[in-house]
């Protein structure tokens, strides 16, 4: 029996009436994974064999409209539900059988630098290959995910694909740090006296945490896939999926003070703007100008240059400049890394607001396009369950006139939350060190305000979608 202590969470989803039982059930994760597995197989199948016009194909509509919109909603309302139901990890049991215990992931790679590189790569490929317009390539992205997850799982002992590589996971890890639920324990005393540590080592009922997070020490959603293996493995039923104030993790400075982790957060925020920038007229003007000024470059290299500057160089330069200014203003000799790592995570709410505004726009304008795409798919297979003609007139779920105000509102709410987190992080350091003051906050607050208004400016620009004329329809 578990001893309840004063640290027991006020609301634990794992002990809610019905959903709690389902989540803790041995096959609970499979319940989420099976539908997503079928969706992934549908993406592959329709992407490879269906119409190659993106709005007519289930692969492109479900991956680029519904997945992105719904994943943001899930992260905002619950947490990292996509990783919980991730179909790409399903072959893991088979892979583990092949590998036996496998090798340890190389020590030099146990950080987020590869994750940053792959996140950058997927955003670059998205722009260069117009993944959003190609069912065929979208299918191959899904195939590549299955192959990579399987291979990495087969070769290594832990789950390096999830923890160190997966771009979707990296995206979700950062975003889920504002989510309202987090893994914790109901009683720390129970963990203190527990000898088996099944939550991390695995037990009779379940694997332990593949990402090697020890439940009583979890202070952050970062790296947590919500797989709930820890909860199923715990012989004391002591693991909780607890409700928490959404900004608590960021305000409590719960992340490790590492360059890679902090930089990943800023890259994620920068990508929220550059991804929107990729769909407005100035990006095409910039592309054309660069091709004129640098005639030895082709389109791919020009896009690589643009997005390397926006997604890597800009966050690095702006983050370092803000860190240096912040330190200089209070004449502190604190390592730059600590300053960078203290303030960079505070930008997550702003990034979340911008991502939500962007992906929410596509979802709001195109949610119902899944209906004619599905009708088209069924009719192609001689199934007339949903009619004998696709209803192409379906599309938006919100009036277009609502969208820009909503986008602005999400961005400003994100900015406000970022400023709150910055203020709280600064207050904590001011109270512990007389050398700090409100001045340390100013460069970061100015950067947040500038990014928010840049995002709002982008949202006011007309959207334009180009670069797909060579698709060979």
């Amino acid at each position, binding site marked *: 029996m578990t001893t309840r202590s004063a640290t027991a969470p006020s609301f634990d989803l794992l002990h809610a009436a019905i959903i709690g039982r389902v989540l803790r059930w041995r096959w609970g994760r499979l319940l989420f994974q099976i539908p997503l597995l079928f969706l992934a*197989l549908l993406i592959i*199948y329709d992407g490879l*064999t*269906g*119409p*190659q*016009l*993106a*709005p*007519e*194909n289930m692969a*492109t*509509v479900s*991956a*680029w*409209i519904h997945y992105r919109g719904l994943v943001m909603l899930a992260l905002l309302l619950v947490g990292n539900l996509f990783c919980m139901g991730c179909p790409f990890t399903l072959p893991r049991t*088979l892979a583990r059988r092949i590998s036996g215990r496998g090798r340890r992931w190389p020590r030099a790679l146990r950080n987020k630098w590869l994750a940053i590189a792959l996140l950058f790569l997927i955003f670059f490929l998205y722009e260069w290959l*117009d993944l*959003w*317009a190609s069912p065929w390539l979208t299918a191959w992205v899904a195939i590549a995910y299955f192959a990579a997850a399987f291979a990495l799982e087969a070769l290594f002992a832990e789950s390096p694909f999830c923890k160190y590589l997966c771009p979707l996971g990296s995206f979700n890890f950062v975003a889920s740090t504002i989510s309202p639920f987090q893994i914790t324990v109901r009683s720390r005393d129970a963990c203190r006296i527990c000898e088996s540590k099944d939550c991390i080592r695995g037990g009779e009922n379940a694997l332990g945490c593949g990402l090697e997070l020890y439940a009583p020490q979890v202070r952050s959603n970062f790296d947590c896939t919500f797989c709930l293996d820890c909860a199923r493995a715990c012989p004391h039923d002591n693991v909780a999926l607890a409700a928490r104030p959404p900004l608590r993790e960021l305000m409590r400075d719960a992340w490790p003070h590492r360059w890679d982790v902090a930089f990943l957060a800023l890259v994620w925020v920068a990508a929220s703007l550059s991804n929107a920038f990729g769909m407005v*007229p100035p990006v095409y003007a910039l592309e054309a100008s660069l091709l004129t000024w640098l005639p030895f470059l082709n389109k791919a290299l020009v896009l690589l240059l643009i997005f390397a500057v926006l997604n890597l160089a800009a966050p690095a330069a702006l983050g370092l400049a803000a860190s240096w200014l912040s330190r200089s203003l209070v004449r502190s000799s604190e390592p730059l890394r600590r300053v960078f790592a203290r303030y960079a995570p505070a930008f997550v709410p702003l990034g979340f607001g911008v991502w939500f505004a962007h992906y929410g726009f*596509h*979802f709001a*304008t*195109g*949610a119902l*396009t899944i209906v004619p795409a599905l009708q088209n798919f069924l*009719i*192609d*297979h*001689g199934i007339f369950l949903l009619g004998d003609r696709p209803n*192409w*007139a*379906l*599309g*938006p779920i919100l*009036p*277009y*006139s609502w969208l820009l105000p909503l986008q602005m509102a999400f961005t400003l709410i994100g900015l406000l939350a970022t400023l709150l987190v910055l203020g709280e992080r600064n207050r904590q350091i001011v109270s512990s060190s007389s050398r700090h003051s409100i001045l340390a906050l100013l460069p970061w607050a100015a950067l947040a305000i500038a990014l928010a208004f840049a995002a709002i400016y982008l949202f006011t620009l*007309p*959207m*334009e*979608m*180009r*670069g*797909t*004329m060579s*698709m060979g*329809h």
Partner: protein
Amino acid sequence: MKRWFLFLIIAVLLSAACTRASRELETAADVEVQLMVEPAPPVVGEAVLVITITDETGAPLEDAKLDIKGDMAHAGMKPVLATAERGEGGVYRVPFEWTMAGDWFVTIRGALPDGRTFSRRFDVSVGGEMDMNMDGS
């Protein structure tokens, strides 16, 4: 059990792929379809599609029933739909609207009185300032 499940999935996918009958761009080889747009070059806003339909000898086909669908490249964009029923001298003038700048794919599907059907897809690059009305109202 797991092997059977895997086998079942693969079998379903393969059989579905074999029986798939995509209706994309069924083409009557003896029908010529040409598309011009007004204004040219196309810009965001109201437009006219000028569709010319002839047979293999160049004789106009005046009584085709046309379904026209304009799609943007991005998934999730509601298409612009239009129809036409008669084209004087084989020329069908169809009011249309480019709702956004960018790359468009105009698909024209037609049916002739003798039962023949045809379809063609055209790439159109639309530029210009935008006054977007996604509601179609």
